[in-house]
């Protein structure tokens, strides 16, 4: 049990002259869940990609099972038993689930695939992780969470010695998380080593054995998780303390309704949804996988064409399927999918922040100076880690990209903000900063709808929580001290009868 499975030491890596990993190290034993912890941009994903062969290290040593590895391709690493679930999705939307799972290890002779056996084999892993979807379903038809589950199934479908999970729970809900943990524990029992990356502190203690903390591409410390606590870890990774208090919102203006959503129907995904949002309120939207929260948000701002229903912002009706109209009237949406919907990855931060704010930054022509000033301002304000304000968005770590998404919408100065999974993939330190931003917003008279699968943060931040289940509102709860996670989960799972 105590034997060392993987040892990475002295790892260095830089991108375009910027040192990202500086003498990084990690040591994983067989049969342990080793948590890798660090702020956004600390270099966790990069370290993992070097391990998997997706990137090549500049120097350092990788010893797997006593064998020193050099310049291995992803294929070779898979053959050596290293299986990785990356932070960003790596699935082919156009082919069925089973083909995604079996890609690279198809069953068959002479290069000819036996589809029947492949389906059966894939079904085995779907059963194992408890995803009840026909393996012949196209991946493109799945929800984000379901895709994540497919990724997990794919990762454990190889002959795995070392499993790496880079933020596997970022886009799934409690139910799937529990299932995942069960699988992880089973793998552990088989002597498989697991590297686990997550920003959800509570999870780490539940599932992890040891923990390696990184900061700024450097190794900080490795500790036993049962001999430490959240505060210590936080301090190690952030360099300061972070609090976990429930936010007492005293800025709500009770009688001023800013947003009125009436009877929204969208295809067969949303079924007659109505609610109201008050000035200064933070309204949580909770629910399980595929409950339809993202669709609801997109229907409200006009990204999707609703089949039925109306939305009034301060008494003015929002035009159907006209995002610009919604933004002009003062409601903005911060996408959960920063890669595909949030940012123009190949453009500098300046362009990204300017994009929704052209009217503001343009008199006759675009004021590029002002764009730069504003960008720098937000880099400071949100502590965005970036080499320069002209750096391309894709060169930032996931969490820092999320901050850029927030920055571009903060500058637009809206009345209502819809945050869709705003802290997905965000470290504790930055999380707190985002919460503070939200508090600032309501303090200044804005209102917020917060879609989140993280029950802790929903409870921490929201005044009111609406629970969705399969496109219906199943509960509208005041977030009092008495409200427990189990209660929310109950409405999300079993519905408990429709209200209103």
């Amino acid at each position, binding site marked *: 049990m105590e034997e060392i499975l993987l040892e990475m030491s002295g790892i260095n890596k830089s991108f375009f002259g910027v040192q990202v990993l500086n003498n990084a190290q990690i040591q994983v034993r067989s049969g342990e869940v080793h948590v890798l912890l660090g702020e956004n941009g600390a270099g966790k994903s990069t370290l993992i990609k070097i391990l998997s062969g997706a990137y090549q290290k500049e120097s350092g040593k990788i010893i797997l099972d006593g064998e020193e590895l050099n310049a291995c391709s992803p*294929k070779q690493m898979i053959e050596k038993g290293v299986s990785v679930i990356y932070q960003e999705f790596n699935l082919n939307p156009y082919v069925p689930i089973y083909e995604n799972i079996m890609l690279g290890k198809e069953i068959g002779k002479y290069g000819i695939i036996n589809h029947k056996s492949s389906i059966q084999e894939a079904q085995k892993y779907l059963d194992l992780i408890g995803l009840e979807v026909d393996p012949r379903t196209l991946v493109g038809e799945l929800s984000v969470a379901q895709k994540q589950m497919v990724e997990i199934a794919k990762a454990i479908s190889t002959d795995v010695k070392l499993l790496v999970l880079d933020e596997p729970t970022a886009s799934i809900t409690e139910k799937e998380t529990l299932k995942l943990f069960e699988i992880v524990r089973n793998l552990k029992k088989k002597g498989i080593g697991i590297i686990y990356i997550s920003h959800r502190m509570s999870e780490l203690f539940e599932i992890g054995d040891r923990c390696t903390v990184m900061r700024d591409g450097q190794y900080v410390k490795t500790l036993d998780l049962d001999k430490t606590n959240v505060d210590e870890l936080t301090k190690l990774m952030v360099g300061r303390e972070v609090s976990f208090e429930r936010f007492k919102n005293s800025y709500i203006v009770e009688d001023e309704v800013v947003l009125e959503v009436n009877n929204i129907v969208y295809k067969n995904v949303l079924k007659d949804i109505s609610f109201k949002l008050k000035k200064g309120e933070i309204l949580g939207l909770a629910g399980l996988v595929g409950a339809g929260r993202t669709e609801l948000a997109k229907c409200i701002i006009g990204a999707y064409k609703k089949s039925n229903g109306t939305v009034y912002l301060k008494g003015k009706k929002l035009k159907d399927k006209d995002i610009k109209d919604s933004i002009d009237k003062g409601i903005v949406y911060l996408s959960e999918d920063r890669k595909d919907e949030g940012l123009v990855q190949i453009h500098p931060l300046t362009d990204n922040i300017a994009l929704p704010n052209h009217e503001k930054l343009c008199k006759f022509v675009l004021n590029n100076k002002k764009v730069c000033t504003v960008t720098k301002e937000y880099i400071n304000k949100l502590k965005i880690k970036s080499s320069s304000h002209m750096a391309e968005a894709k060169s930032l770590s996931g969490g820092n990209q999320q901050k850029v998404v927030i920055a571009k919408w903060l500058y637009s100065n809206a009345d209502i903000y819809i945050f869709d999974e705003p802290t997905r993939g965000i470290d504790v330190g930055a999380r707190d900063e985002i919460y503070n931003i939200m508090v600032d917003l309501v303090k200044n008279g804005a209102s917020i709808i917060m879609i989140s699968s993280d029950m802790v943060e929903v409870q921490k931040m929201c005044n009111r929580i609406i629970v969705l289940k399969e496109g219906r509102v199943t509960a509208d709860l005041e977030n009092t001290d008495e409200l427990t996670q189990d209660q929310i989960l109950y409405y999300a799972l079993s519905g408990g009868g429709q209200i209103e």
Partner: protein
Amino acid sequence: MNNMINRLKKIDIKSITLYIGAVLILVAFTIICKINGKDFLTTSNIQNIIAQSSVIAVVAIGTSLVILTGGIDLSVGSIVGFVGIFGGMLIKNGISLPLTILICIAVSAIIGLMTGYIVSYGKVPAFIVTLGTMQIIRGVTKVLTSGKPVAGFPDALSELTAFEIFGIPIIIFYVFVLYALIMFTLKKTKFGRRIYAIGGNANAAKLSGIKVNKIEMLTYMLAAIFSALGGILLLSRLSYADPNAGSGYEMDAIAAVVIGGIGLSGGKGKAGNTLVGALILGMLKCGLQILNVPVYYQTIIIGVVIILAVYMDKAKERKAE
């Protein structure tokens, strides 16, 4: 019964729309021709249409593969021209027909391999590489004979395609056999599925241990090989090689692929339907010529059909908006 429903399910709606479209065009031409006192739907004319579409159809197989990976190949037409001249010269120099075919395929494969290498390992966009190789290959072809055609071949050459089995010219069998082969490969083999995987998400395929570069390169090699086969068919059909032969075939092939429903972004669609696409184009040309429609109007009509075919194909996407 249940089996049949399952089978029907497998033929997706897109394909069915395509087949209906093809049949409608066939029926329309048959009726219009009848009214004008001409025959369209006769065995011999159907054979003509297939034979006339055969070269494009075969070339388009390779184009399908490349497009499925998300690439594009503009050089296929120039390879058709090259193989005609090069193969023609070999034959004139007394090389036997089978050996000529082998050499042509081998040389084209090497050309395709180089093209593919620059695209996949060189990271140069396929459009550019093949725009360049198109010109290079055409130039080399003309250098070979100082721009002159090659003619005067033994009868064996034209027999290669004209030979009839049960009254059906063998060229038609070639086309169907090649299509059967590629459909099998795409559906049933690892190589085929990986082509889809690369077109769908190259990064994911790479991280799954697929040698993306290698497979991508091979599709360009295959495109060159299918073009070479097309070139040999054309050479045999005409018993005459012109250095300009095959000009513009790349666009006809792409049109056939796209009408057949394979999207230019790759990862989606069926190579089998490319044959239907090629036949639709062939039917249009044939029907319009039988009706003696002036060539200007022919180009206009074919242009409209290309756009319409894809426009209808995208109805679902527009609705999803």
